[in-house]
């Protein structure tokens, strides 16, 4: 079957099988930041934004995404760049395999809730599994980014 969708702002048209997963579709179109992890809808490695909402691309039919907008890390690098160095500074990247999913879901979190508490960060990122770090590093990194951003904002307001 033929489908058309918008991938990172560009219209993409392709012929697919009915059971092609969005994960395989975006990877076939060059978006290899999207990782194949558990494939049982549990680990968050394959997170993409579908019409702006974070979803597990391993559990969405590409056919279902037809006519919609899909974003991967390849299309959101500027937005990610604001905070990923803070996560790296905490040594929270480690093997790096879970990182794109983490970054995608953090983008979704910060769009929805620009100034989350630690508990809100934990709750939002609960669906992203990391087998290296124990999660505290990611939390410290996001907290450090938010603190730095809030401090810069206060200084700007004070002139």
């Amino acid at each position: 079957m033929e489908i058309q969708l918008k991938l990172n702002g560009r219209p993409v048209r392709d012929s697919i099988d009915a059971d092609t997963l969005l994960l395989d579709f975006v990877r076939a179109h060059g978006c290899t930041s999207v990782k194949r992890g558990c494939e049982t809808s549990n680990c968050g490695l394959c997170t993409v934004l579908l019409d702006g909402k974070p979803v597990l691309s391993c559990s969405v039919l590409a056919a279902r995404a037809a006519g919609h907008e899909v974003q991967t890390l390849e299309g959101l690098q500027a937005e990610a760049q604001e905070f990923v160095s803070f996560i790296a500074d905490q040594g929270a990247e480690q093997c790096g395999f879970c990182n794109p999913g983490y970054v995608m879901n953090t983008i979704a979190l910060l769009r929805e809730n620009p100034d989350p508490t630690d508990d809100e960060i934990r709750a939002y990122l609960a669906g992203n599994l990391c087998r290296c770090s124990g999660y505290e590093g990611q939390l410290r990194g996001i907290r450090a980014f938010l603190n730095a951003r809030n401090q810069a904002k206060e200084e700007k307001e004070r002139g």
Partner: protein
Amino acid sequence: MLTIKQYVRAQSLDEAYTLCQKRANVVLGGMLWLKTQNRTVDTAIDLSDLGLDTIEETPDEFRIGAMVTLRQLEQNRELAAYTRGAMAESVRHIVGVQFRNLATVGGSIYGRFGFSDVLTLFLALDAAVELHHGGRVPLAEYAARPYERDILTHIVVPKQPGTVAYLAQRNISTDFPVLTCAVAVRQDGVRCAVGARPMKAQLYQGNPALLAGGITPETAEAFAGSVAAEAAFGSNLRAGADYRRAICKVLVRRALLACKEDA
């Protein structure tokens, strides 16, 4: 592995219903549980174009479309106000935001899964389901029915004065629950649902006379004991039947006391 031969985005409920009559065809919800199955589907029927993704509120009820996601339930302010946060509490531990953005309430209720948090809460809320051909059916009756080839279009929650509380026990966050419990205190009595027993959620009457003098720590404990004695429990890799019975007593008591506090 899940294999799907054809995908159809139904343009009407009649089309979806007709397609659904064939045993090899499947109506898609969020596709999360379906995807873990080893089966071949002839035609996957997608209801995404049928406008079933909204939560409507009237003076008497909430009418929740089958394609509403668990995340929508979690974030809906009117449902939050009506259930005093119990709706969000019932879904917030389900895997993660990305999962809840896909999982649909229709899929959860149609599936009548043993582990279902939302089935437990909707039973306590005295909900009904609307079926394309079968009309409106009380959820308690629907939950007990065998699977049938009708399209679940809406979940209807009647507005009733009172309070509601939802509690669940998990071995670890985001895992399937060991036990789920929802209690609604209404003018005509208490509706108590217990799920993940590990069998699917069910309403239990307990001994209502124990609450005749009001909800106190003592009467709540006694009533919870009567529910725990009435309910059937089983064992699986997450917990044994005896443990579930003990947890049931605790959760029902706490939920009752939470309802009293809210009132």
